[in-house]
């Protein structure tokens, strides 16, 4: 605790104007868990949901449910209005210049990346093309490209990362030469490290390539302005940012989305269908085949309003203070027996701590932590190439969000000590 100022400590228990204790009252899961310890440190996998989100979805189903873009009766029009408003709310949240036409709702970030990859591949990739990824991508931004590579036969190049989990950019020009698509994560889901998105997008454009950012781990925690970042496409997911599962989105520059061919075919994505062919609908509808996740979109919009009310800058400050305290506390208590991957400077990474404990496998570690009510993720975090590079099969990962405070970090450290004693 030495060396931490009171302001920093204050931020651990507050997010902007509100205390974490108050915020927790908005999350029903904390009510249910009152009689037993509940230390939820796995928001990097999926966040908890505030009542506002659940209530908005419930109210929609209870009072307004009808299919969208079809009926001319009152509740169908209301449902369409709510769904389209959700699109605009999410678009504005990330600074989309044309929110009503640039947000494509998907199931999650994975589907958003697949949509982008399959659609872009049809017009832009041949056996002579080059796609550039990074070595620290989640499987969601690796496997779709690998599947397409098997089919089309293009080359995939990887931007490497250094021991601290930062991208190694010294060979960037050479790697990007001749590339058609560059796709990179905005924040590593293993290290929490941030990638220089603006620089990557600029370099991609200098080579005439399209730049796709995977924002799954970033958008829930930072203020995003797609225009300022200079990117072309952004994949997002709702369930990591207080929204429900089953909803995500692809943002794309309108002109780019217009020239991209459809990904999935079906109802709603067409303007006309004849037996000899079809005419696709306008953007963004041409990418939304079939009845969309209406309630989920409404829930996600409510989550966005909740986050905006707290303030993304405040959320970042709060997570940074927790991260800083946690890194110091782990180092003080365990020294060399616990390895933390990534930088130890809290300002250089998101609220994620990946660690291994000497003599205790991450799987066993998380099992023992669970006995103290501490929920962390154990495994390869869908980033097996990263694990291979680190020379470990798995790590345990704790991740923070608005409902975490100092007591959660203390509970984590205490549970880590228990695990160490158990396997000693």
């Amino acid at each position: 605790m030495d060396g931490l100022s009171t302001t920093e400590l204050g931020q651990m228990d507050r997010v902007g104007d509100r205390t974490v204790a108050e915020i927790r009252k908005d999350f029903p899961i904390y009510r249910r868990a009152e009689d037993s310890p509940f230390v939820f440190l796995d928001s990097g996998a999926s966040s908890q949901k505030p009542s506002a989100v659940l209530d908005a979805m419930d109210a929609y189903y209870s009072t307004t449910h009808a299919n969208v873009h079809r009926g001319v009766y009152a509740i169908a029009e209301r449902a369409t209005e709510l769904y389209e408003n959700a699109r605009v709310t999410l678009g504005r949240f990330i600074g989309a210049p044309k929110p009503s036409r640039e947000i494509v709702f998907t199931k999650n970030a994975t589907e958003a990346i697949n949509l982008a990859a399959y659609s872009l591949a049809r017009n832009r990739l041949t056996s002579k093309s080059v796609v550039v990824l990074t070595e620290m991508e989640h499987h969601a931004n690796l496997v779709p490209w690998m599947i397409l590579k098997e089919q089309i036969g293009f080359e995939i190049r990887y931007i490497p990362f250094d021991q601290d989990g930062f991208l190694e950019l010294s060979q960037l020009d050479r790697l990007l030469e001749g590339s058609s698509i560059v796709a990179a994560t905005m924040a590593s889901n293993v290290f929490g490290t941030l990638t220089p998105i603006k620089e990557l997008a600029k370099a991609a454009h200098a080579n005439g390539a399209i730049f796709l950012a995977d924002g799954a781990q970033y958008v829930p925690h930072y203020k995003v302005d797609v225009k300022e970042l200079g990117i072309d496409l952004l994949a997002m997911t709702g369930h990591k940012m207080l929204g429900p599962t089953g909803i995500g989105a692809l943002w794309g520059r309108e002109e780019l989305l217009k020239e991209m061919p459809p990904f999935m075919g079906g109802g709603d994505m067409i303007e006309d269908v004849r037996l000899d062919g079809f005419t696709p609908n306008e953007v963004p509808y041409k990418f939304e085949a079939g009845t969309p996740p209406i309630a989920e979109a409404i829930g996600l919009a409510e989550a966005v309003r909740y986050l905006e009310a707290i303030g993304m800058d405040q959320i970042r400050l709060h997570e940074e203070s927790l991260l800083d305290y946690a890194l110091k506390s782990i180092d003080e208590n365990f020294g060399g027996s616990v390895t933390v991957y990534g930088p130890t400077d809290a300002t250089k990474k998101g609220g994620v701590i990946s660690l291994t404990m000497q003599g205790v496998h991450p799987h066993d570690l998380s099992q023992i932590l669970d006995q103290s009510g501490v929920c962390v993720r154990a495994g390869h975090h869908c980033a097996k190439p990263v694990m291979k590079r680190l020379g470990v099969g798995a790590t345990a990962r704790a991740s923070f969000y608005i409902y975490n405070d100092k007591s959660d970090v203390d509970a984590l450290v205490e549970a880590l000590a228990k695990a160490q004693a158990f396997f000693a």
Partner: protein
Amino acid sequence: MSGLEDLYREIILDHYKNPRNQGELPTPPAIVEQGHNPLCGDEVFVYIEMDGDTLVDIKIGGQGCSISRSSASMMSTAVKGKNSEEIHDLIHRFKAMMSVEEERPGHEGEADLKEFGELAALQGVVKFPVRIKCATLAWNTLNQAIDKASQQG
């Protein structure tokens, strides 16, 4: 800590900290198979050397959690000197104990712990469904290795 002692029995921790038959065997004459737990990234290498139909030597490589490593270690001591039919039978009964395979008709009670010796310590894993895959990883890999041996033999 209710339940945790059921999972991490003394004997399991002993096999985790002092794994038996760890290492490699030269291939050939030995046969090696690799198994993965896609859930946690654990991997195991099972090396076996057969003399005719009898498993005369076994070594375990790779890395994993206490459950997967201790299960592999106990398995290695249990199968040495057995023939392929006996090993298949043991694999089946172990997986029946782990509730991933049914007891065979006419073999009711084959998953009975009393027959298992040390292996019975892994019974507690059943209460932690996510960990069943850890416990059965080496067994599935051994099964593949035995099949490979019989094809080559």
